[in-house]
């Protein structure tokens, strides 16, 4: 019965920290909301689930890795402004995102048999949405670096904040794929406005977030 003891220990730890369960519930909730926004045509949402999952695993690592290895202190003592550190991380994450897009989008389209009516616009919307996701996750990961539970705190903070961008990107992408562009300005404005606002907030708060 030792396996039960191990399971009980894990459950006790989990219900105390609520790390994994929070992440699972948030991810499940977000997936349901995503698919509900694209009733009848769930493929664009499915593509975004891929990007969200990949992004959640990857984008926050740029800052958290520096914290874990102690090299964030090396940047703090170097003659480099906190905003340069933030922008450096955003550019790094954006580069990773572009590499991911180059491989994932063609594979996804081939597997699901999706051939967008407006290919260029579809790619631009996906890139803009992903870039907004990168900006939000990079900026937010700075804010949680001082927390002991930073790995778990980030998704809890990120999902609700990034939700409008995800929904808007899925809507705009669905329109671009179908070729029905009526009202596409709305979601595109949300993506661009959200990215700009988050970037501005990140720039204004990075000094306070980085120096204790």
């Amino acid at each position: 019965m030792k396996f039960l003891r191990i399971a009980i220990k894990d459950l006790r730890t989990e219900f105390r920290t609520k790390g994994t369960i929070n992440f699972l519930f948030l991810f499940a909730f977000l997936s349901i909301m995503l698919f509900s926004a694209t009733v009848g045509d769930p493929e664009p949402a499915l593509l975004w689930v891929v990007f969200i999952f990949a992004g959640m695993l990857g984008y926050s690592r740029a800052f958290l890795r520096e914290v874990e290895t102690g090299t964030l202190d090396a940047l703090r003592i170097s003659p480099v402004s906190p905003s340069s550190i933030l922008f450096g991380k955003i550019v790094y994450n954006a580069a990773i995102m572009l590499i991911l897009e180059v491989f994932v989008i063609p594979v996804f389209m081939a597997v699901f048999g999706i051939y967008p009516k407006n290919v260029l616009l579809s790619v631009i919307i996906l890139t803009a949405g992903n870039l907004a996701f990168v900006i939000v996750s990079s900026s937010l990961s700075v804010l949680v670096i001082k927390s002991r539970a930073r790995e778990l705190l980030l998704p809890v903070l990120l999902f609700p904040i990034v939700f409008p961008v995800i929904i808007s990107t899925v809507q705009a992408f669905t329109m671009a794929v179908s070729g029905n562009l009526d009202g596409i300005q709305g979601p595109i404005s949300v993506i661009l406005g959200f990215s700009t606002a988050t970037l501005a907030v990140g720039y204004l708060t990075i000094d306070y977030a980085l120096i204790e």
Partner: protein
Amino acid sequence: MIVRLENIEKSFGRFKALRDISFTLGKDERLALLGPNGSGKTTTVRIISGQIKPTNGKLEIFGKRRVDESVKRRMGVVSHNTFLYEDLTGYENMEFFASLYDVDGDRIKELLQELGLWKRRHDLVRNYSRGMKQRLSIARALLNKPELIILDEPTTGLDVEGRTRLFEMLSNFKSAMIFTTHNLQEAEQICERTVLIREGRVVYDGSSENLESVFQEVMQ
């Protein structure tokens, strides 16, 4: 005067790490910050190097009240944490930090040769010994020819040979120095002046001679 601290206090939540730290450091002076573990030595040097801000008190460094980029250009920091990227080679680490300080490749070569790391420059830092990492960390801190070098317990994890080699290097330094340690002998050996910290307060500021008797007197 290079550094002046006046009544510095630092709190982390409810915990008061520093209660009253005041001392100065002159040009080319070598100062040991001595104290038991948890006394506030590292917090003090983290404030001086601009990693954290004091809760209260006045800090002046190179005549400035704020540790900005121009101040950071004039100092170097070596810590027990080596501040190195383990998945980059020794040379790549130096190249990266040199780019932040606008230092050219000749300086990198000069330092790596001086510290005996030139032959291993293309090895990943994760494959370096603790002593080699510490030497690379010193090379990184010297890239900008700092006027002030801060060494925060740099001997942690070093064997006797590594420690001896480090002390030989330190004896050749010409710049002002702050050296934190909990070891009386190290303070006496490296620095002419010692500031003794206990529970976040300066309890002694004077010569590094006869530190053992001073330490016992002050700590009782």
